């Protein structure tokens, strides 16, 4: 070992130790927010924030199915009781009245401060007479039993009208005392965790609590549990990522190691071949940790892809080493090509570095740092560690066949042209746009889970909100007052048919000003008694029948105003928490709209209210995504241009740049064609995949392009490229099977693209120049 080699070895070991130290302190995250855009506008910030931590994001929708209704109901009641007792949930609702008793108490106590019907004229002799006449009719009616008990204290029926107004619009049907889906096949529970959705560990604990509590509640029965909700998605995605990262890395490593051991027939060389990858991965994690402060799970999972790319370097070195040649001299020969290939890859990866998706930027940095270190290890460390006189014997046997195949390949040029032409025609002629412009296309949640979520939401009557009125205000009182003004405008919209309905925070907690105005509308006891007496004329009520009413009105006039804290522990309070949130130094009120028919009219009506904005959520998110897609396409084009410039600087011949670039462009085009043929609408992740195809494939076409004097040497080169491509296709092909859409999109694209880049490089290679 030379002195320089020893120095290199020492520096490498020091680097490994340093990286190891950094990695040991690195927090690993798996929450999805890394794959949400870093949003630029305050409104979008609010959206992302609500998505991550909002009360709506803490919802867990639970279904119990697969047994007779009585059994389901019983399991629902037991599960709800266990969850309520656990202290992990802010609320658990399954339709049992138990959950609403505290609501009723609050509504009863504060009915005269909550009801919008409370105005001075309602308590005049005339107003009371109208109320009492109405009451008499209700008492006679079949449903009279419902009003009878409350009538003497609440003759104007404020409680019933409040309960009706505040009841969620669509409620699940009740059967055997608990909520059921419309078809009666599934008992339903709605739970809200105390922990925010972004605390995935807490969410996971809550979820496993639901599962164990259910196992006990349904002991031995055939009932099955289904759970969905934003937090459940986060936990599931994390599980998928973990599972996939482990499973795919393991399978990938075993397959690639098996292939290489069959080739090298030396465990030591196989081990050496993994050094660049391992060092690269370690350096990648350390670099991401230093730059971002934490490393995302998907970034680690991407290590699999790095194996596909960086294992290539060792393969090139080992398989191209002719019998009897010194590894150093072999490396000196192939280094320029390899270096160019690596730089090309880095040009491609750097496009990801610029991404506005934190997760993607991490992947870019990980790959770039990993590749640099892997290449350096291959260049300066490996040659001195390879056993003297090592050569891959199997290569010699493979050379004739491979060369024959390569020589025959150009005959397929005609076929290639047909394939490319077909791809172009197909891409141009397809009816839907090639690129998906909807954020849903990068949803990390699988289609089956989304379908279950939709189903349960429909069952529970909690559809996804697509229009939201957002109000910003300096304090809670101002937010509530603004929300009351907006609600008045929206009520007008409802009566004009612009929308079907809406929810607003002031319905649960009227502003202090409104509550005071209602208190002032309540007459003093003696006035009320006199008015009642006048109102009862001609009606069969006993003279003192409404004394409880007089007493309650007097109490309401003196009642301390309803505060947010009084609603704590009620379902009203929970709904308020979702609609009125503290944001930075101010407050935000949110009014979700239902059944919006004329968004423009609503927006116009709200336009003159200060601080009030109407949001079309889907459009906002899609716009956000389209912006990033545009940005990503631009970055990729920049990456491609950088690659072209790099190739031109290195090869100094436009013709050779074309030779190297043409197979890559053809592979990218054909890959898009195949994906489109499979009905896939391309997302930002496919684009990233295409960039990787160009980065990885450039190695192949560069080696094909390289002038090789001896036929045997060219044969070795081609065999090395073949194996490099095989390992890449294995690594990315496995990724294609991932349940995580991001990984599967990149895997499919790169797996396909790498295979095609290899085939096309062979087909388009300039035979005559190298003919023996």
């Amino acid at each position, binding site marked *: 070992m030379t002195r320089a080699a020893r120095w290199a070895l020492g520096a490498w070991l020091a680097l490994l130790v340093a990286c190891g130290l950094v990695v040991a302190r690195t927090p690993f995250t798996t929450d999805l927010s890394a794959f949400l855009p870093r949003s630029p506008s305050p409104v979008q910030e609010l959206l992302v924030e609500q998505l991550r931590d909002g009360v709506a994001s803490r919802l867990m929708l639970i279904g119990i199915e697969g047994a007779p209704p009585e059994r389901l109901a019983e399991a629902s009641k037991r599960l709800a009781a266990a969850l309520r007792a656990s202290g992990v949930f802010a609320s658990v609702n399954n339709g049992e*009245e138990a959950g609403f008793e505290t609501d009723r108490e609050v509504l009863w106590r504060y009915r005269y401060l909550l009801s919008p019907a409370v105005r001075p004229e309602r308590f005049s002799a005339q107003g009371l007479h109208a109320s009492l006449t109405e009451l*008499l*009719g209700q*008492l*006679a*009616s*079949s*449903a*009279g*039993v*419902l009003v*009878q*008990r409350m*009538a*003497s204290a609440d003759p104007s029926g404020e409680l019933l009208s409040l309960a009706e107004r505040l009841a969620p619009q669509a*409620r699940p*049907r*009740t*059967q*055997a*005392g608990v909520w059921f889906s419309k078809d009666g096949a599934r008992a339903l529970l709605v739970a809200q965790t105390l922990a925010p959705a972004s605390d995935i560990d807490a969410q996971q604990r809550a979820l496993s609590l639901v599962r164990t509590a259910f196992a006990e509640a349904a002991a031995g029965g055939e009932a099955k549990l289904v759970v969905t909700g934003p937090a459940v998605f986060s936990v599931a995605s994390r599980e998928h990522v973990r599972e996939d990262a482990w499973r795919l890395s393991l399978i990938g490593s075993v397959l690639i190691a098996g292939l290489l051991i069959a080739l090298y027939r030396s465990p030591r060389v196989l081990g050496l071949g993994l050094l660049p990858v391992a060092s690269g991965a370690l350096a990648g994690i350390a670099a991401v940790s230093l730059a971002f402060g934490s490393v995302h799970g998907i970034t680690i999972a991407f290590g699999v892809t790095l194996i596909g790319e960086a294992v290539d370097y060792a393969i090139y070195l080992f398989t191209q080493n002719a019998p009897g040649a010194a590894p150093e001299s072999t490396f000196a020969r192939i280094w320029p090509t390899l270096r160019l290939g690596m730089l090309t890859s880095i040009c491609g990866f750097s496009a990801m570095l610029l991404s506005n998706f934190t997760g993607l930027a991490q992947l870019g940095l990980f790959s770039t740092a990993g590749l640099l270190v892997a290449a350096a290890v291959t260049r300066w460390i490996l040659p001195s560690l390879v056993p003297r006189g090592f050569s891959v014997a199997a290569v010699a046997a493979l050379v004739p066949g491979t060369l024959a195949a390569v020589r025959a390949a150009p005959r397929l040029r005609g076929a290639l042209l047909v394939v490319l032409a077909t791809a172009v025609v197909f891409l141009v002629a397809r009816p839907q746009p090639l690129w998906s412009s909807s954020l849903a296309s990068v949803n990390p949640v699988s289609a089956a889970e989304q379908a279950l979520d939709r189903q349960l939401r429909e069952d529970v009557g909690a559809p996804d909100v697509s229009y939201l009125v957002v109000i910003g205000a300096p304090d809670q009182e101002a937010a509530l007052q603004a929300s009351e003004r907006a609600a008045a405008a929206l009520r007008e919209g409802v009566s004009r048919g612009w929308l079907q309905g809406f929810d607003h925070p002031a319905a649960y907690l009227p502003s202090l000003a409104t509550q005071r105005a209602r208190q002032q509308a309540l007459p003093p006891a003696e006035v009320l008694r006199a008015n009642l007496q006048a109102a009862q004329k001609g009606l*069969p*009520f*006993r003279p003192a*029948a*409404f004394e409880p009413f007089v007493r309650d009105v007097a109490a309401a006039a003196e009642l301390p105003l309803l505060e947010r804290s009084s609603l704590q522990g009620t379902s009203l309070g929970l709904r308020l928490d979702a609609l009125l949130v503290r944001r930075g130094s101010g407050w935000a009120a949110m009014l979700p709209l239902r059944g919006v028919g004329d968004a423009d009219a609503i927006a116009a009506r709200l336009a003159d209210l200060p601080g009030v904005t109407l949001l079309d959520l889907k459009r906002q998110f899609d716009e956000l995504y389209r912006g990033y897609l545009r940005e990503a396409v631009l970055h990729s084009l920049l990456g491609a241009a950088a690659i072209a410039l790099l190739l031109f600087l290195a090869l100094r011949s436009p013709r050779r740049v074309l030779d190297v670039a043409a197979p890559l462009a053809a592979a990218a085009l054909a890959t898009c064609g195949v994906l489109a043929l499979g009905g896939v609408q391309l997302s930002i992740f496919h684009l990233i995949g295409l960039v990787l195809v160009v980065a990885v494939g450039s190695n192949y076409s560069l080696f094909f392009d390289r002038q090789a004097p001896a036929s045997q040497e060219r044969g070795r080169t081609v065999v090395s490229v073949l194996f490099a491509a095989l390992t890449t296709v294995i690594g990315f092909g496995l990724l294609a099977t991932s349940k995580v859409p991001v990984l599967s999109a990149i895997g499919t694209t790169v797996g396909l693209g790498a295979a095609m880049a290899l085939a096309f490089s062979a087909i388009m290679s300039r035979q005559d120049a190298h003919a023996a």
Partner: protein
Amino acid sequence: MVRIALVLMAFALPAHADALEDLMLRLAQVKSARGKFVERKELAMLNAPLESSGTLVYAKPGRLEKHMLEPRRESMILDGDTLTLEDKDRGQVRSFAVQENPVLWGFVESIRSTLSGDLATLKRFYEVRLEGAGADWHLRLRPTDRRMQKAAKEIRVSGSGTWVSTIEIDEAGGDHSVMTIRREAP
């Protein structure tokens, strides 16, 4: 003395249960019925009883219609699980699953389940006792559910043969109502 009472009860119970099941079986044979009702409610807050009247229609197994004609036109239709309240004077219709309102459900089921001879459903809401027999029987229904107990102390359904002739309700607050049903001339 106590022992004798227990022995007597032990003998009396099966016979009693048999008579109840017997009555229920006979009621279950009735396919449909139609009658005129007059309901009289005596409420503590009113100084005169509140009277209403109309028609009552039953069809096996689960449909019960109560059409009030006086003092206002209003219908309550119970069909399977769905309860529909229609205020004809105002043109308002409200329909909901009967399970959503356990108290109202208990009240309507005291009539419907008796008419259809559905002892199992009756027993879900009430402790059922039969007094009398044949042409003069009385079912005493005492609510078992806590919420229902808050609304009613006892419901007495009386009849003759397979005809239900009066339904009396003793409400928890001391209010009282009696509905008498006369066969409608065909």
